[in-house]
């Protein structure tokens, strides 16, 4: 009984951690981009304020059931994923370590990949129902971009899975621990492919074609406001944390304690943000061609390396 209780409490703690970290990173990224553009920018906690404001908005608009439940797909997906990835290494010895085990200990990568799609699909359906053409255009771009970056990303993962004969994240982390180096060093090409695919997931410029502020009036989310947008923002923050942790877990040796986790994820997070701050937007087909160029080549090399 205690076991289950701890699991549930631990799950809640994990979600709260993910939410806080994700929101803070979101605020920081706005600040960083502003500084690069020679503006002062909002404070780091601006995202918390925005979220709260949206949440307490009195009037909300929806066009139908699918739009009503769309944010739930997102939040359901991001919460489930955060519970299924190991936040910290098992080897860590801090007192809070036992709070963050993943639910399914052999959390499987293929499973995770598919789980991560639920949100996009729900979002797409919700956006579709609003009838706003910008939403549909945004969705069609988003899905296209996804096909683009998933290819090198999956190549990298498959290469690792075959190289280390395991399909679970914990298995990969154990492998890294066993060989003593990060997988980023033992499988450099897979890491390279995965890193090049990463900006596509974060949708910062030059891959912000989905929202495309000046063009599509924020794309899929253009009809969402108030509590809906707030839920989506929450989910987005959690999901950002999920992605970063996943990268850290797989390629950069995981983290033994929260400080290490924050440092590693923040550095990793700055990479798409900084790239975005200095790049203009791609067109959709350019984005796909980008992902299917060098990243795929690295992916192929990684696969060949894995099979040797």
């Amino acid at each position: 009984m205690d076991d289950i209780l701890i699991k549930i409490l631990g799950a809640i703690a994990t979600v709260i951690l993910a939410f806080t970290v994700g929101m803070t990173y979101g605020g920081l990224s706005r600040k960083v981009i502003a500084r690069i553009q020679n503006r002062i920018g909002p404070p780091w906690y601006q995202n918390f304020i925005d979220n709260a404001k949206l949440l307490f908005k009195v009037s909300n608009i929806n066009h139908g059931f699918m739009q009503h439940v769309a944010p739930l797909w997102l939040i359901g997906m991001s919460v489930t994923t955060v519970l299924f990835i190991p936040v910290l290494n098992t080897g860590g010895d801090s007192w809070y370590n036992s709070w963050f085990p993943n639910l399914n200990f052999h959390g499987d990568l293929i499973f995770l990949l598919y789980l991560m799609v639920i949100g996009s699909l729900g979002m797409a359906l919700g956006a579709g129902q609003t009838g706003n053409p910008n939403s549909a255009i945004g969705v069609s771009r988003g899905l296209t971009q996804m096909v683009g970056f998933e290819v090198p990303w999956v190549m990298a993962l498959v290469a690792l899975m075959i190289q280390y004969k395991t399909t679970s994240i914990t298995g990969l982390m154990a492998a890294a621990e066993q060989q003593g180096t990060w997988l980023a060093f033992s499988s450099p090409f897979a890491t390279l492919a995965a890193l090049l695919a990463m900006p596509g997931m974060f949708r910062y410029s030059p891959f912000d074609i989905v929202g495309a502020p000046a063009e599509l009036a924020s794309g899929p989310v253009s009809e969402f406001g108030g509590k809906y947008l707030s839920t989506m923002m929450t989910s987005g923050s959690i999901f950002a944390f999920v992605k970063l942790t996943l990268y850290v877990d797989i390629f950069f040796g995981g983290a033994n304690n929260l400080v290490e986790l924050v440092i590693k994820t923040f550095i990793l997070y700055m990479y798409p943000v900084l790239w975005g701050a200095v790049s203009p937007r791609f067109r959709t087909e350019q984005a796909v061609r980008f992902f299917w160029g060098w990243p795929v080549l690295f992916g192929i090399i990684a696969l060949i390396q894995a099979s040797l």
Partner: protein
Amino acid sequence: MNSLIILLFILGGGALLSYFAFLSKHAFGQAVVWLVAIASPVYFFTQVAVGESFSFSLGGFELALGFNHYSWVFALLIMVLSPLSLIYSTGYMKSRLRLGTFYFSFIFSIFGMMGILMSRDLVSLFIFWEIMTWASYLLVIYRGKDVEHTGIKYMIFSAVGAYSMFMAIVILNREMHSFDIATVIQNFGNMNAADQWLTGILLLIGFAVKSAVMPLHVWAPGAYTNTPTSFTAVFSGGLSKMGVYGIGLVLLNLYSHSDFSQVGIYLAWLGAITAVMATFRAVFQNDAKKLLAYSSVAQLGYIVAGIGLGTELSVFAGIYLAILHGAFKGTLFMAVGAVERQAGTTDMTKISGLIKNMPWTFFAALVAIIALAGIPPVGGFVGKWMLYEAAINSEHMFLVILIFISSTAAFLYSFRFLFGLFLGQQEEETAHIKEAPAVMVVPMILLSLFLVLMGTFPGIIFKPIAAGMAELGFQGVPWHMSVLYNMWGDSVNLTYVSITFGTVFLLGLVYITLIARKGTKHKLSTKDIHTAGEIPKPEDNLNYSLDFYKPFERVLSPLLKHKLDVYYNEFGKGLEALFNFMRRIYTGNGQTYALYVVVFLVALILLSGRIFGI
């Protein structure tokens, strides 16, 4: 009387009876169809069992019928999907012409499929195969659309497939002196390598045609599109699985003890390539039915890849996917048929926003699409997962990548399908459309509930599949009610997934419904949208439906430029030129013919030394 014969009698007799019943009175016909749709599954599930057999002699051939555990799995699919589609048909086909022909061919093709599955010798297998083929051909051309092109194409490919199978069967008979499948398996070693390869390839061609493997797939999109939709559900969901059944039979059963089984991996590659190419084509379709047709080809590609790969897990995944594909593609075609019947078209550029008009259909389609895309927590995920893991475990990494590209691109058409028909702008012109009648909706909903159930408890059908696998030489395949294991011991526990996702979703639903409840404005028109300050005029088109994935099309344009179809057509034209040349032999001139006679005689006499060896 033997229960197998009675089952065949119900189906075959029902087919004939429905034909004559529709000749006399429409109500009689409907009654017969209902009778068959209820009687055949009831009889099947209560009276028929694995292990019963029936042997008889016909035309000098010893024939034998009987299910084994392997064919039983497919029989389950057929006997669930077909009756549901039949019931669905009674709503879908209302007020159409030539219903007698339609139901005759429909039920007769079910008869053929069940016959194939219970055939224990190659002659009866072939007979039922041909019956199934021509019955389905009659349905492909039933609507009279494009008969000379699509219909003939289907028939040509089917005939090529069937005849290569035929050739293999008679050669096997020469070597084995028997048509019995068990004997063939036993005496296989006595055959020389050349014959093994020849017959193996020929049989595979025969089965690959029906399961639409590249390059033999070109008939499929057209045929699936032209068939009345209620049959397409069975056509794509059940009939194509006969090819899968056959491929499994050939690779894992007949030829499992020879080098020939190596061919499986090439087949797996063909399957994966088929999946990718067909998915790309599906993405750019504007017609929902055609989209599903291409998607069927793609999904069959996965299944073939699974069977071809030949490891325990991959075959398991292949068979599971075959069953699941039957369920979700059946549902999807039914949904599209409902839309077609209610809205009059399946062109996604013409209709949109039907979710309000047809909520139940939308629900069924949504579940089925989630299953198709392989997203948890619906059953399709289970099959996808096992397929990937099997390919990764056996280290066919580029194969994994191909399959992955295909199933990621599948999200594109999955969304397109749902968006195109059910979401988007709700227009004045479509406001009158109503939900389809209950006889059409209920089968869809039943199938979609089955899919949801599979998402958490796939063990329900793992059980018969595992039994069937034993028939293919994989003894004692481990399976669990809701935990998936791969060959390296990694696992996914589906109950965790379902419970977590379900809990968050439900909590969220309560939360998002309750918060600011009073201020939430429901049921706004889809015209009432945010347009960044611009006020759209009534005549402005606010629906994004044409060139939906144009950027993606631009990326893929070099790949899509070549269509296999074109080469086949060129080949056909070349043949026609040859035929025309041949025709000139018959000049219509009496003297010429007389000359032929004389020349022939002289030539024979001159060559007589050669001919008679003196």
